């Protein structure tokens, strides 16, 4: 396990890609970028266990696969459990001298539906048992694969095909599940939030996640032009705005206790208003078109600000 992480552009170009071109992810989808950035952090033999989701479906359209490293598709709710099995079996094989590699990194990937909702029990079990797995969620804010249904990661005010906006409803009315906080509460060695716009921060954090002993968790924001009704060329801009508005702040949590704000979030003097993040997205259009939802929009802004202040406090940032 000696391979360096590729952080500089020059090194990134030289590092072997783990996902080939020609996959069928939608134009402008951030998920393949996220996977490629993950690949820049790898340190040696790696296995990926992936839950059902957009990334799984669209990178493996019959009869092809875009994956260049060992990859197993599991059911929707159990990527963490399968990864736990893989890790423990490797351990035994290694002890018995029946396995050539000194170490194999095991990564589990799920979308927000597979992580916040249906796979949550399995994830929590893996964290509690302490398997040496890196779990990464690419969070595009809804069940985009089945046609944009709300999930536990859907933001308040977001319109989906099961949280309609109209005269009586402003879209999803509930708050987003604070997944990184919940995972950190398991007191695992490492939790980090990342944005594909901040590639250096992303790769360094993913490498840390691989290096710690025991479970690590990476929460990546993943803009989705199809579901968000945004321009395909705006995904990286939205990934940046998610950080600047405090909707997806970047930070790390060590052992569930020590919070550390990451550079891009630390440098924010004042949060960018959420309007700047919402307006380029058709899924929030009703919040600006219908004056009756102005109060709800203000409520969302208040929630974001409150979360931001609390996070700053935890991180010891003024």
């Amino acid at each position, binding site marked *: 396990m000696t391979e360096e992480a590729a952080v500089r552009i020059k090194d990134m170009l030289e590092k072997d890609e783990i996902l080939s071109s020609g996959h069928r992810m939608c134009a402008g989808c951030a998920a393949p970028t996220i996977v490629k950035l993950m690949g820049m952090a790898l340190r040696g033999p790696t296995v990926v266990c992936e839950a059902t989701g957009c990334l799984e479906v669209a990178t493996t359209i019959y009869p092809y696969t875009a994956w260049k490293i060992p990859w197993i598709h599991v059911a929707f709710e159990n990527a963490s459990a399968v990864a736990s099995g893989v890790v423990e079996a490797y351990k035994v094989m290694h002890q018995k001298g029946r396995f050539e590699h000194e170490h194999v990194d095991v990564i589990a990937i799920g979308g927000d539906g597979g992580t916040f909702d249906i796979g949550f029990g399995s994830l929590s079990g893996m964290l509690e048992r302490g398997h040496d797995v890196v779990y990464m969620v690419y969070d595009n804010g809804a069940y985009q694969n089945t*046609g944009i*249904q709300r999930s536990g990661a859907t933001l308040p005010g977001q319109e989906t095909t*099961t949280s309609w906006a109209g005269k009586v409803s402003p879209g999803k009315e509930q708050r987003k599940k604070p997944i990184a906080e919940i995972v950190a509460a398991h007191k695992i060695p490492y939790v980090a939030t990342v944005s594909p716009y901040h590639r250096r921060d992303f790769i360094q954090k993913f490498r840390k996640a691989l290096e710690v002993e025991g479970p690590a968790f990476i929460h990546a924001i993943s803009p989705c032009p199809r579901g968000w009704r945004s321009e395909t060329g705006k995904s990286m801009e939205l990934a940046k705005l998610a950080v600047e508005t405090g909707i997806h702040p970047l930070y790390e949590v060590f052992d569930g206790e020590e919070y550390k704000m990451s550079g891009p979030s630390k440098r924010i003097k004042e949060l960018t208003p959420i309007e700047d993040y919402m307006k380029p997205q058709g899924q929030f259009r009703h919040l600006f078109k219908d004056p009756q939802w102005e109060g709800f929009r203000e409520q969302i802004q208040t929630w974001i600000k409150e979360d931001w202040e609390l996070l700053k406090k935890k991180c010891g940032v003024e």
Partner: protein
Amino acid sequence: MPEKVMFTMGDIACAEGALAAGCKYFGGYPITPATEIAEWMSQKMPQYGGAYVQYEDEIASITSVIGASWTGTKSMTATSGPGVSLMLEAIGLAVMTETPLVLVNIMRGGPSTGQPTRGQQGDIMQAKWGSHGDYQIIALTPASVQEMFDQTVQAFNLSEKYRTPVFVLADETVGHMREKLVIPDEKDLKLVSRKQPTVDPSEYLPFKADEDDLVPPMALLGSKYQFYATGLTHDERGYPSDKEHIQIKLVTRLQDKILKNADDIIDLEKFMLDDADIAVIAYGTPSRSAKKAIKDARAEGIKAGLLRLKTVWPFPEDIVADLGTEVKHIIVPEQNLGQVYHMVRSAAAPTPIHLMAKPAGMPQLPHEILAKIREIDSI
């Protein structure tokens, strides 16, 4: 509401059928190819004074439906094979607690993730045998957009009448096909609601069945009657028991309330069967191909007919057995490797049964079934 005509897909016809039947609670979770039902319900339910709630997985969806049903609300969920696999434990719970609910399975290719966007009929045996222990189930198999509506209404009626979970088992082709749908005037719809207890609350036994239909009247959660239900084997009071005779009595009654009322439950269509030498037994999308094949065979002078199953569980054993004595051959085209085929074989033996198995998305085409009819006719 007066009669309404729509041009729509099977999934939406199913949702409309549920609304017409008086469904007021939908616990959902997205899954291809059933998601349109949830989407439609999430939009319509509030307009009908009902609730749509999306859960974190299928286990939560169906168990929420069990809870909702106990309040006296007609309740349902809709999913596909992988979702049903997760719901199996709860189906047993609903059977044991005699909870009326409707479970729609828009069947896709399996096992596992299989082919989410391609239809199949691979979940027929799962519906019957999926949960552990001995039990009977009701499963309806619509073959058109209109039947998606009609049989969803029927599913609610049967679930209320017999206090049992009822499956609507439609293959993906039926779920996603678009056809004309006539929604009848609501006063022309025959709707059934569960029996309520009439005895004095001090005498109410929640699991004491009426002798005629073997179904106990069902008190509502929060009414004046004491409510008690458990997945454990229970006596007429609903209290758990480890006694052998209680277990035998309960499991036998749960079976009998379906099997002894089978004539009332079973629905089927007989097409050109009267003088037939060769019968095709089919359901869902392949039955549409079969009908065309039979018309073509008749034009050629071959005496073929169709028995179209609109109910697969309870299986119309007596009807199939009689048919076995009337025809020389039976053909069973199914979009699986043979499931209803085994039921036909055990009912109609020793009449030769010919399986046309196709575990894939494209159903048996009319000319393929016609070729099989010709081949058998020439024997």
